[in-house]
């Protein structure tokens, strides 16, 4: 074979803990340099390095995949003193293509259907392209992977529904208030969970206020997310003024009681209030949810929504896998045709050379032949080449579209002792298309 083989070696959240992943990660600005270093070894013809918080992978094309795999394993191992061999996975040939398509389509992601991975892959691909690491095989494979990802997103519900608790809370707030810009949000308690939600709210243009038993911590959180701290004694008045309230205190008792909220809702004059209780144990008396203008969601409610959305995505992943499988078939058909073209050219050359050699040996004995007769003999040789090769080319063409195509092409090359590099005379290339067409197959690439 002259077109090389695709392979992927790396580790991900499926196989390695974060501590290992972060030690192997490659800074984006260093990717080009790393690729050039890998290509300089001569073991790879193409390479792309993908490094995200959930995976570090080297994609490559190589004539000798065994040597290439060893090089990439060593390359990843050199990045850390710990032994990473047990965390690495290797994908070769069709499995490498499948892996690339699945990663781009977010089927291999920690949160199935998340959109960031596609952007990260495009970025890694662009870096490699700039460093001269992309050739025909990886180029085609990645471009197809991006197209597959697009198909998967548009034709399945894999990206439907939000799956993070803080995003769901914001989505619900939007479903109550419409645009959140200029709305007032109150954080009761200054824990880590509050901080994450506060940052998401701040991005939406919400005015933030923080109430906490410890004023110092309230000040600290308010500064961190661009809000204002308020004294704990102002809790009731802040509840009256706010549109969204997020509670996450460590209090063992209810911080927001039904009695307190009775007075608050009366003072609010029926203005809706979205209460998000992400504390464990809960901060808000569940009876508060029965009040007319209050919408109360606790951590379990939000987690349930996240789980339902995740379950929907997993169901949709089945349809996505079918799209991936169909696209792999198309890709493999194209890859098969890559090995076929030089073989056909070489095969035609071999037969034509044999016939012409015989003709040239016979011609000195045929003295009376004129220009017209010689042209006729040339045409006869072409016709004989086509006739003799019709059936073999038909079988090769048909075989190249199957998984056994590579074996068939190898067999043809060995049977006719064709040269390995596939070099042919330029004039012969024109005949290839004609031969393949005559063989009755569809020529060229897949989609």
């Amino acid at each position, binding site marked *: 074979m002259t077109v090389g083989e695709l392979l992927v070696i790396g580790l991900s959240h499926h196989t390695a803990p974060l501590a290992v992943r972060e030690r192997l990660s490659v800074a984006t600005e260093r990717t080009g340099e790393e690729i050039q270093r890998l290509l300089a070894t001569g073991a790879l013809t193409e390479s792309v390095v993908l490094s995200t918080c959930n995976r570090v992978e080297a994609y490559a094309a190589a004539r000798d995949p065994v040597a290439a795999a060893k090089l990439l394993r060593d390359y990843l191992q050199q990045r850390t003193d710990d032994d990473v061999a047990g965390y690495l996975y290797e994908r070769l040939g069709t499995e490498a293509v499948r892996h690339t398509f699945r990663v781009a389509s977010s089927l291999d992601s920690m949160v199935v259907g998340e959109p960031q991975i596609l952007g990260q892959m495009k970025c890694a691909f662009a870096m490699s392209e700039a460093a001269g690491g992309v050739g025909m095989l990886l180029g085609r494979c990645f471009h197809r992977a991006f197209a597959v990802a697009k198909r998967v997103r548009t034709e399945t519900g894999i990206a439907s529904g939000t799956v993070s608790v803080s995003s769901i809370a914001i989505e619900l707030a*939007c479903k109550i*208030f419409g645009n959140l810009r200029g709305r007032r949000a109150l954080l009761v308690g200054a824990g880590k969970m509050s901080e994450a939600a506060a940052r998401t709210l701040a991005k939406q243009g919400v005015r933030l206020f923080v109430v906490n038993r410890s004023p110092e911590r309230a000040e600290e959180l308010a500064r961190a997310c661009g809000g204002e701290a308020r004294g704990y004694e102002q809790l009731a008045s802040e509840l009256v003024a706010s549109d969204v309230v997020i509670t996450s205190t460590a209090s063992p008792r209810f911080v927001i009681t039904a009695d307190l909220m009775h007075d608050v809702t009366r003072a609010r004059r029926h*203005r*809706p209030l979205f209460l998000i209780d992400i504390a464990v144990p809960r901060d808000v008396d569940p009876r508060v949810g029965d009040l007319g203008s209050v919408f109360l969601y606790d951590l379990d409610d939000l987690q349930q929504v996240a789980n339902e959305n995740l379950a929907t995505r997993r169901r949709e992943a089945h349809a996505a896998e079918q799209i991936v499988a169909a696209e792999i078939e198309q890709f493999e058909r194209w890859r098969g045709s890559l090995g076929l073209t030089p073989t056909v050219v070489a095969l035609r050359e071999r037969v034509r050379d044999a016939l012409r050699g015989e003709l040239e040996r016979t011609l000195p004995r045929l003295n009376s032949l004129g220009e017209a007769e010689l042209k006729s003999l040339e045409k006869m040789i072409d016709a004989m080449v086509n006739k003799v090769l019709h059936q073999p080319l038909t079988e090769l063409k048909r075989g190249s579209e199957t998984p056994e195509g590579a074996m068939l092409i190898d067999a043809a090359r060995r049977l006719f002792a064709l040269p390995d590099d596939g070099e042919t005379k330029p004039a012969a290339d024109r005949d290839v298309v004609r031969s393949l067409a005559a063989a009755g197959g569809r020529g060229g690439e897949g989609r």
Partner: protein
Amino acid sequence: MVTALFVATGVLYAVSCSLYLAFLLRGHEGAGHWANRVLGASVVSHLAFLGADYAVHGNVPYGDIHQTLSIASLLIVLAYLAAMLKYRITVLGGFITPVTLLFFMGAGLGRSVAHVPHDVRSALLPLHIGVNVLGIVAFALAFAAALAYVIQERLLRRKQLGGVFQRLPALDVLDSLGFRLVTIGFPLLTVGIITGTLWAVRIDRDAPSVTATEGFALLAWLVFAGVLLLRVAAGWRGRRAAIGTMIGFACAAAVLVGYVIQAGGTQ
């Protein structure tokens, strides 16, 4: 010809209504897309019907209650399509087109039979019918927004955050829309009741009385007045205001039903 156009319009309204409901309940994007197109075709067909009705029978939109219902259904659709172009609220078609369809079917009950007698016609009549039709259009749209609000609020409270919840607009948007529409409809209804009273007094000077139909009109006015007053003075909003709006529209619709029954009785 006129009947064929009437039937065609009715069928187109029914088809667009089904498509809007398919979009609302099942989330078929294609259904929503086609619903808007079919509703556009319904408007063209409806206009052709009104034109043909005038050309062949000389019927004008305020000629009788059936024609009034017909023009009201057309105006509801036009108002919805205008709002749709601006706010992209295709999903509300699932609430508005059933009302439109009911109005249009009401227009078909005993059509071209009971015209207003010549002796009770007056210059006030077109004004009375005109403002009432515009008022009922505003209330029909407010009813759709209120119904959507009640459903959306219920889904949010029950934590059923699936398809319909995702497709319906935000509660605040529906509440504001309902409030604005009632604010538009209420003065129109007020003028409609005043002109109707003046007209009734003029033709029935000797023994003025209040029929059930007029009673419902007064009730509708009182309900909407209450909704607006409580919204402004007591900060009413959300579910209570939405339910008040729906009751008000039911009373206003009862007036139309009363007129249809009366027209049936005079056949």
